[in-house]
Structure formats: structure tokens, C-alpha cells
């Protein structure tokens, strides 16, 4: 197990190297015009910083490889992501303030998705081809197609027209008032979790159907066990492994979706930070946010891989 963990952590190194390279190169795709665009599109900064200052701040006057190594070196050695161009705040502080918010949103969405998807998926499988099965299945395929920004828009518009109710816009941090914070987050989490729950439900159903046909399930039935015991103890645990993999695969989609949901409900997380930075062309923030998000996705996938051992005693890490 330890050797496996060490190897996996080691494998993160090349992945992170490529990831940092991707972020670095994308932002410098058009090195000459970045400055002009920043000055042209940002009235706030134009008078504060001169062109040469901007070039120096971004380090664009140095050779490309030197820029990369000083950038990545700063992150690795001092956790220094640079400073925001317009506010002069260290990007690290901004990231530290925003990451927990997005993490909370993502976690709540995941919990929502699993709490709805797994029971319905099981029900759909053990009552295969009944009306309830068809209904939940069609519903889940439909929910896959509904874009979260449309659902978010409708949640903002219709309750307000019908009942004069609209979601709270002023964000309350969890540490200040947990109850108020959770009340505020539950709606965005529901919307973010819907698409994930639809996919998870489909997979849970498919896997349950496959497992329920196995010999050991027949044995369990033959022993006279109750349905609950057969389904939960014998079938579910075996069916859940691919579902856990799916959650790892969905992590990037969940985080991408968080950007949109944060924008609609004005939640100050990583997504909103990124969008604001993009509208201000604040490149140190943009690179910092993307790198941290990429790293988070890799970590999630690592945790998912490690969790197989807990779910399935047959899995031995070598």
C-alpha cells in the first residue's frame, strides 16, 4: 500500500509538469498583444501601470524558459503564485479564501447527487422494467440535457414572479453562520448535483443489474436472506466500485459547472474569482486558479483510486 501510494505520488510529478506547462503556454499564446489587450480592455489599470511596468511585472521581458522556471519555482519553493495585477494582493491569499467555498459547494453537490442517485438507481434495478423504472430513467436522461445555467436562471426568475421569493445574494461564510450558509448553498448544490446524479443513477442501475445476475446473489437468495440484506450487503458493495470511478471522472465537470453556478448565485468561490480575473485580464490570478483546479482534479482521482481498497477487499495495491 505504501509503495503504491509512493508510486502514485511520484506519477503526479510529470502530470503536474505538463499541467503547469499547458497553463503557462496558453496564457502566453499571443505574448505581444497581451499587454495591449490588458491596457485597452482595462480602464482601471491603464493609468496605474505603464506599459513597461506591466511587461516587467509579468516578467515578459525575459526569455520564455526563464519565465517558466521562475514562475514554477516560486510556486514550488514559496507557494508564491505572484500578485494580482490590479489589486496587488498575493494570489495565494485569494486562492486560500476562495478554495474552501468551491470545495463546500462541490462536496454538497456530490452528497446531493449520491443521496438521490444511488437509492433511485438501486430501485430502478431491482424493479427493472416497471413503470417506476421507466419514469426515473427517462427523467435522468432528460436531466442530463438540461444545462445548469438554464435551470439556475429559471430558479431565479419563476419563484420571484410567482411568490416574490429570490435567493439571497449576499454571501454568508460558513464560519460566520453555518445554518444561514447551508441554507444559501443548498439550491446551487442541488442544481450542480443534478447532472452528476443523472449519470450516477444510470451507472448504478446498470451495475446493479449486472451484479444481481451473479451466482453469489443467487446463493444469497437461496440461503433465504431478506431482500434488504441481499441488495445492500451482497450486491451494492460490488456494484459501487465503477460508480466511485465515475465520481473521479466527473470531478472536472463538477468544478467546471461550479463556475457557472457561482456566477448565477454570486457565490465567491474559485469560479467567480476566475471569471472576474478574466474580465480584468488579471493573468497571475488566471494561471493560479487553473493550476490549483488541475491539481485538485488529480488529487481527487488519486483519492478515488485509493478508495477502491476500502470498498473491495479483492483489490490489493502493488
Amino acid at each position: 500500500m505504501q509503495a503504491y501510494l509512493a508510486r502514485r505520488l511520484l506519477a503526479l510529478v510529470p502530470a503536474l509538469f505538463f499541467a503547469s506547462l499547458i497553463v503557462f503556454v496558453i496564457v502566453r499564446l499571443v505574448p505581444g498583444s497581451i499587454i495591449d489587450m490588458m491596457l485597452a480592455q482595462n480602464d482601471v489599470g491603464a493609468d496605474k501601470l505603464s506599459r513597461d511596468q506591466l511587461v516587467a511585472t509579468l516578467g515578459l521581458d525575459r526569455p520564455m524558459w526563464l519565465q517558466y522556471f521562475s514562475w514554477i519555482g516560486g510556486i514550488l519553493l514559496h507557494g508564491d503564485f505572484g500578485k494580482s495585477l490590479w489589486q496587488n494582493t498575493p494570489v495565494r491569499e485569494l486562492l486560500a479564501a476562495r478554495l474552501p467555498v468551491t470545495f463546500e459547494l462541490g462536496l454538497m453537490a456530490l452528497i446531493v447527487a449520491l443521496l438521490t442517485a444511488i437509492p433511485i438507481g438501486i430501485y430502478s434495478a431491482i424493479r427493472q422494467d416497471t413503470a417506476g423504472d421507466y419514469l426515473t430513467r427517462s427523467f435522468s436522461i432528460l436531466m442530463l440535457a438540461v444545462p445548469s445555467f438554464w435551470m439556475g436562471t429559471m430558479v431565479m426568475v419563476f419563484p420571484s414572479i410567482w411568490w416574490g421569493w429570490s435567493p439571497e445574494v449576499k454571501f454568508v461564510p460558513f464560519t460566520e453562520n453555518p445554518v444561514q450558509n447551508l441554507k444559501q448553498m443548498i439550491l446551487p448544490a442541488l442544481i450542480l448535483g443534478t447532472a452528476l446524479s443523472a449519470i450516477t443513477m444510470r451507472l448504478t442501475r446498470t451495475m446493479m443489474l449486472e451484479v444481481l445476475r451473479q451466482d453469489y446473489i443467487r446463493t444469497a437468495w437461496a440461503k433465504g436472506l431478506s431482500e434488504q440484506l441481499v441488495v445492500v450487503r451482497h450486491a451494492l458493495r460490488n456494484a459501487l466500485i465503477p460508480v466511485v470511478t465515475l465520481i473521479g471522472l466527473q470531478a472536472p465537470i463538477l468544478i467546471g459547472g461550479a463556475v457557472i453556478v457561482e456566477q448565477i448565485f454570486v457565490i465567491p468561490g474559485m469560479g467567480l474569482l476566475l471569471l472576474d480575473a478574466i474580465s480584468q485580464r488579471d493573468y497571475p490570478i488566471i494561471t493560479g486558479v487553473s493550476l490549483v483546479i488541475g491539481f485538485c482534479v488529480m488529487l481527487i482521482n488519486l483519492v478515488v483510486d485509493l478508495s477502491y481498497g476500502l470498498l473491495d477487499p479483492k483489490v490489493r495495491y502493488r
Partner: protein
Amino acid sequence: MAMAIDVPTTSARSERGSVFRFVGRLFREKPLGAAGGVIFALFLLCGLFADVLAPYGMNQISPRNRLLAPSLAHLFGTDNLGRDMLSRCLYGAQISVIIAFTTATLATIVSIVIGILTGYLGGKFDLIVQRFVDAWMSFPDLIILLVVVSVLGPGLPQIIFTLGLLLGIAGSRIIRSAVVSVRENMYVHAAQSIGASTGRILWRHILPNIMPPIIVLFTTRVGTVILAESSLSFLGLGVPPPTPTWGGMLSGSGRTFMFQGPWLALAPGLCLTVVVYATNVFGDALRDLLDPRMRGSR
């Protein structure tokens, strides 16, 4: 050889009329998928003939008719500038069709090139490229898209280029795994042993035999692209206004007027949902019929 028996439809090109037979099979075995296909075709037609079908111009402003509820004259109502929502949705379909098809084509070509080369050549080249693909896929699509657009600025060509590359690299995995399984077939070894060039083997022996996953990949990409483009437009970083896009209609100035005219929030979202839903079920049905091995993967 097994491939040819497993997937009889690969020979569709050589057999006259087998396309019709395939469509017949689609309707018989997968009625929901066929319905999706019909809606998908309608969406295509709406996009192609938006200029003919739209009752009003896409930016025809009519201050007297602003914020009218849906009626016979304006089936989807009008917006805050008095523009007809039905016409704007039809022109939105046109933009979606253009972006979806060019991007899906580009993405599929990128996937094929990377997938075939890494899958067939293997070795160190494959290893390095695969690590790069790993890193690439650890970024959410939307994040890369946003970052690139922040550098290149919003616009149609940028979106097509970025999305094409983005989905192309991610999709190369599917093509690669198909190539790896085809590569070990007898006919490939036979071609290698008679000294056929790598290019010839890839073109004449590998490519025709991985057509089913390619077709399926292309179809599912169309839906993905439509959703991605509309998300981008919704965030104000897609095709700039006043060009009507489904995502853009749900954001921006239209958003403030939705409380007075809720139909503004309904029409574009409904178009989007119906088309993406239809594409999904159509793609699923195609996959089940053409490439049973991919069942359960998305």
C-alpha cells in the same frame, strides 16, 4: 476478421442501400433514438434554412412591440427591444449548427490523428503523449476554454479552434483504444509482412475498421459542443452580441427583463434542452447499434 463479423455495418459504404437498411433497423430497434434522430435532423434544417423560416429578422427592432407575451404573431414572444424570439431562436440554431459541425469535425480529426498515431506506433511516443493527455484532461473543459478565450478574445473562430482541440485531445483516448484492439488483427500483420508502408496500413487497414467509434464519437461531440458553446455565451465569452445564441439570450440584457417577460427565459433554454436531449439519445442508439463495445461509456 472478427471485426467484420461483429460489426456488419462497417461495410455500409460498399453495400448499396445498406444505409436505408440501417435507418430501418434504427427505427425498429431504437424508437427513442430514432425520434432523437428526427429532432436532430429538424434542428439541422432549422439551422440551414433559418433565413427562410424566420418570420422576422434576427435583429429587427420594434420598440412598439417590446416584451409581448407569446401570441400567434410572435409564437415565442418578443424581447426588451421588440425582437421576435422565434426568429432569434432559429438564428441561434444556425449559429449552433455552424459551431457544432465544424467543431465536432475538427475534434474528431484531432482525435483520429492522435489516437491512430499513439495507438499504432506505441512505445515511448505513446507514453509521453498519454501523460500529456492525462494532464490536459485534468483541467475542466470550461476552465481551459475560459482561459484561452481570455487570451484570444471572444469570437466564432476562437471558439471553434479551442473547443475542437480541447475535445479532440480528450477523445483521442477512445480512438486509441479502438486502434490498439484493431492493430493485433491478422490482416494488419499480413499487410505488415508483405511490406506495406505505415501510412498505407493506417489509411487502408486501420482507419476503415475504426469507423464505428469515430461515427459515435462525432455524434456525441455535437451535443457536447452545443452545450459548451452555450455555457460560454452565457458567461458572456462566446460569440459576441447582437448575434443571437441560445446561451447568450439567457444572459446579458435579456436577463434583467426576464422578470417582466418570463418567456425570455423559456424559449432559448427549451431549444437547447430539446436539441441536446435528442442528440444524446440519438448518439446512444447509434452507439448501441454500431459499436456495442462502447456501451455504458460516455
